[in-house]
């Protein structure tokens, strides 16, 4: 039973770090703030990717997807941050 693999869906997002995010700034300024939502301080834009992977548990699925994203250069570490948004059974 110990090596049975299950399918997991790992939700990830790639967001900018340390450089200006004009898309997020524009959404904040021209959609959110203009509509009167004054308590929103910042909007961060990014790209969502979901990965369905075989793994033995949640933690292994997440670490495997993290490795995929680093080694296959799914994100550019100079300018991006990889967020793991969550994991669920697929």
């Amino acid at each position, binding site marked *: 039973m110990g090596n049975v693999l299950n399918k997991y869906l790992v939700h990830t997002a790639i967001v900018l770090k340390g450089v200006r995010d004009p898309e997020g700034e*524009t959404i904040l300024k021209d959609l959110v703030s203009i509509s009167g939502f004054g308590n929103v301080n910042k909007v961060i834009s990014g790209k969502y990717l979901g990965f369905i992977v075989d793994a033995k548990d949640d933690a292994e699925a997440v670490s495997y997807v993290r490795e995929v994203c680093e080694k296959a*250069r*799914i994100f*550019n570490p*100079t*300018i991006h941050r990889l967020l793991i948004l969550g994991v669920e059974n697929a």
Partner: protein
Amino acid sequence: MPRAAVIRFPGTNGDLDVIHVLKNVVRINAELVWHEDFRHGIYDAVIVPGGGFSYGGDWLRAGAIAARSRAMKEIIMDAEGGVPVLGICNGFQTLVEAGLLPGGALLPNDPPRFIAKWVWVKVNDIKTPFTKLYSLDEVVSMPIAHGEGRYFIDGVDEVRVAFTYYGENPNGSVASIAGVVNYEGNVLGLMPHPERSAEAVLTPRGGFVPGGLKLWLSLRDSLVGGW
């Protein structure tokens, strides 16, 4: 006679413009090469053209997928052997993603919009096979047409800058960088389009000049006489 390869990826659309300029304007023997057919060690110069949205409108991010292609591995071998390699616009993005040129990335423009217009650029480095016939600090005009042209790098002082935007910085690039060259000088990438600015007939009125012509003349001169 020297031969130049112009690489076509799925979705590239500036390739025929480059072929036209090479063949008909500066008379360099040029071949359009489908990316899967490209091999290193055959051509005397390699151009990764722009006007392109190779691989489905730059899925993931500009140039990311073409940069991992087998053709890119072949181009890297040529580049390491000293062959002049030029990346224009989407080709520049691809060469940066592939690690052939310094740079963190070409980010979405700031302000965030697609820009298509003629701009002025200054030539900052003339010790390359693509810029040898320009004068240092010469200011020329070329068109830009891109959505992801904001050049970014950590440690901008260490980069060999080939071209900078003169006057207005249209896309938020660090230090107004429009084009860079590798340490050895044989690989150059730029966002402006020299293939669309090599002929007077394509140059708009209003004082603009066909600023890309000297880049192609430089290449021809370099292929014949070195650089």
